[in-house]
């Protein structure tokens, strides 16, 4: 018998097929229909915004991240998700800056993949919102009033640090209309994306389909979107029953604004959501409560971003409070704090 060259590796000698890059790239894949919908609704502007945000995220990861970390796919997700939360007419340089900030200050300063407390894409968006509040709330109207699909929906190509020229027809988002003018939007256009808003805010059903695909592959924890959406729906039903004119109904609440993309893609970021399943329920219910509270009683028309970022900050505490009960002990192990 020929002597084999023997290797020595630690048990187990079998491995499940899934891997971290595989999960990341499957999230990217599931975003493709959402991206396609954004381009369909908002034309070349959508492409410019998405490409700029992704470039910002990926180049920052390449420049400051550990070697080869670009290929794990997480920076691409950050860029794409950030792009999907931005208005279509945003200048490309701002998108790029947001992506770079999200990855740089949202992830790499914490120590890279797996170490960050806050969702990098949302942090990038919060940064842009604080820096450029005016352009971040300028929404072009949905293309039915736009003569040419090829026309840009804003001053996407503005030079860095120049004030963009706004010369497109701009309108309000359904949530803005509801909040400031008490004008409800019809449901069906809302669900298929026929309304004004950020790139990824509009196609609720497409996002939901992507979420189902990821949940089926166990690439997201279904408890998070289910608990968020259920909480929002429940509260909206209650409030709507109390005062139908002031508070919109549950379907409007679910399909307007960034709730779908937030619940399916942002809150489910594994790194910044609880590691325990019981924690996932707590996390989701918390986000749902905050979203309804901000939308109903806050000064802003939309609150998904802040709701998720706020709950991100609570994740270490949620993890500690929801440790599993050890087999044969009937209670969680003591000292279950994550190392600092």
């Amino acid at each position, binding site marked *: 018998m020929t002597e084999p060259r023997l290797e020595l590796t630690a048990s187990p000698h*079998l491995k499940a097929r899934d891997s971290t890059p595989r999960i990341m790239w499957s999230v990217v894949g599931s975003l493709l229909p959402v991206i396609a919908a954004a381009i369909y609704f908002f034309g070349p502007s959508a492409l410019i915004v998405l490409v700029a945000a992704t470039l910002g995220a990926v180049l920052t990861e390449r420049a400051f991240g550990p070697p080869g970390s670009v290929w794990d796919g997480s920076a691409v997700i950050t860029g794409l998700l950030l792009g999907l939360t931005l208005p279509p007419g945003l200048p490309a340089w701002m998108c790029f800056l947001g992506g770079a900030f999200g990855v740089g200050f949202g992830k790499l300063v914490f120590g890279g993949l797996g170490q960050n407390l806050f969702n990098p894409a949302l942090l990038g968006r919060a940064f842009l919102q604080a820096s450029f509040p005016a352009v971040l709330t300028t929404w072009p109207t949905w293309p039915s009033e736009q003569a040419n699909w090829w026309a840009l929906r804003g001053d996407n190509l503005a030079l860095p640090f120049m004030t963009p020229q706004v010369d497109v027809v701009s309108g309000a988002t359904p949530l803005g209309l509801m909040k400031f003018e008490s004008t409800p939007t019809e449901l069906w256009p809302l669900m298929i994306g026929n309304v004004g808003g950020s790139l990824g805010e509009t196609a609720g059903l497409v996002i939901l389909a992507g979420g189902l695909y990821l949940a089926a592959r166990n690439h997201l924890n279904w408890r998070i979107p289910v608990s968020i959406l259920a909480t929002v729906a429940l509260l909206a039903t209650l409030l709507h029953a109390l005062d139908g004119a002031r508070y919109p109904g549950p379907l409007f609440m679910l399909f307007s604004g960034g709730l779908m993309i937030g619940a399916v893609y942002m809150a489910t970021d594994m790194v910044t959501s609880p590691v325990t399943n019981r924690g996932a329920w707590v996390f989701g219910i918390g986000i749902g409560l905050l979203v309804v509270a901000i939308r109903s009683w806050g000064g802003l028309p939309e609150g998904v971003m802040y709701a998720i970022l706020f709950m991100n900050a609570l994740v270490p505490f949620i993890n500690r409070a929801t440790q599993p009960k050890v087999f044969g002990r009937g209670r969680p192990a003591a000292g279950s704090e994550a190392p600092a």
Partner: protein
Amino acid sequence: MPFRLSFRHGVHPPDSKRLTADVAVRRMPFPAELALPLRQHGGKPARLLARVGDRVERGDKLAEADGFVSVPIHASAAGTVTDVGWWPHPDGSQAQTVRIAVERFSPQVPRPRIIPRWEGLTPQQVVEAVQRAGVVGLGGAAFPTHVKLLPPEGTDVHTLVVNGAECEPYLTTDHRTMVEFPDRVHFGIRVMMHALGVDRAVIGVEKNKPDAIRILRESAPDDLDISVEGLTVKYPQGYEKMLIKAILDLEVPSGKLPIHMGVVVQNVGSLACIAEVFQTGLPLIERIVTVSGPGVRRPSNLIVPVGTKLRDVLEYCDGVTDDASEIILGGPMMGSPQPDLDAPIIKGTTGVIVLTERESKPKRSYPCISCGRCLDACPMFLNPSLLGQLAQAARYEEMETAALADCMLCGACSYVCPSNIPLSQMFALSKAALQRQRTRVA
């Protein structure tokens, strides 16, 4: 009774048992040389009796039990003791080992022995006979069987649970034992029930072995209360605590043994071995071993004399393929890789699994992304993600408070980890580090 017989959490690796599930057990010829380590079981190693130059018959004692938690070692073939000294051990270390040059033309008939009439024996005498025969758990852990037969004062044993789960992929030794030697299994159960004074036995078999379940049911003796339960196919179903949870819905408390719940667990192979002790008088000198995996030319189930070198076993199976790269003793989930083909098959060796470059190629590790899959996999409901972070920071005392002691190193967490973090390896090292700290303090 729970609706489905199982435990919560666990993983589903491909069972890969088809390679050998229907291959009948064959007896391997005696090799030219045997290497019998004095340490083949849990507890104290056996105390050496043999001297270089001794002529031994098959079944003669080479080393005797050193205390109660210890068993003797017997010669598995007739021959001459050529050496007593250090030799590669399957656990990767070197161990005191008796080497025997096997007599080429010996008929290998064991020296006539007095077969004890088990019916007349007191439980104490059964325990002694089982210890004298060197019987250990054949499911892998190799804990001396007789120790489990002597419950501590005040414990009331009500059920004998027979472990035929065989949840490790590739392995089919228990499967073939149940299919080919069901009467031995039942006879072993009979002796055990007599020794323990219990009147109820349950055999747990994973449902991927329907033939074993059917045959055991058909051959069960009418005068005994023996039931055969089909269990959900899930790793680690064969671990004692999971098996008891699945069959009896009892949770063995942390730090306690099944006996505290009035349950004794024995592997089917050990029971068949006890049957042989009382039917033929032969001590434990051979066992069934599955030789399988993508890297072996002729996957087989073999009766192998204890002490046969890995090299001889593989040669008998037509050798390994050209791309074979790693040889595992035991199952692929918990087994240990072998650096040396001179290491022998010992009493606790359930299988020889040969993996190829495709399976053993190291995969790149990524940082933990807190996906939580290890928490869903851990049958002990630990938090491997947290334990892994603590291990990386060498914070062993905190791992202890996070219930590291309850980890049985089954490897389910490492199996599912998408970031390829070697969690169970880290836990094994952390346990060892804690042990060292304790001995330093003491």
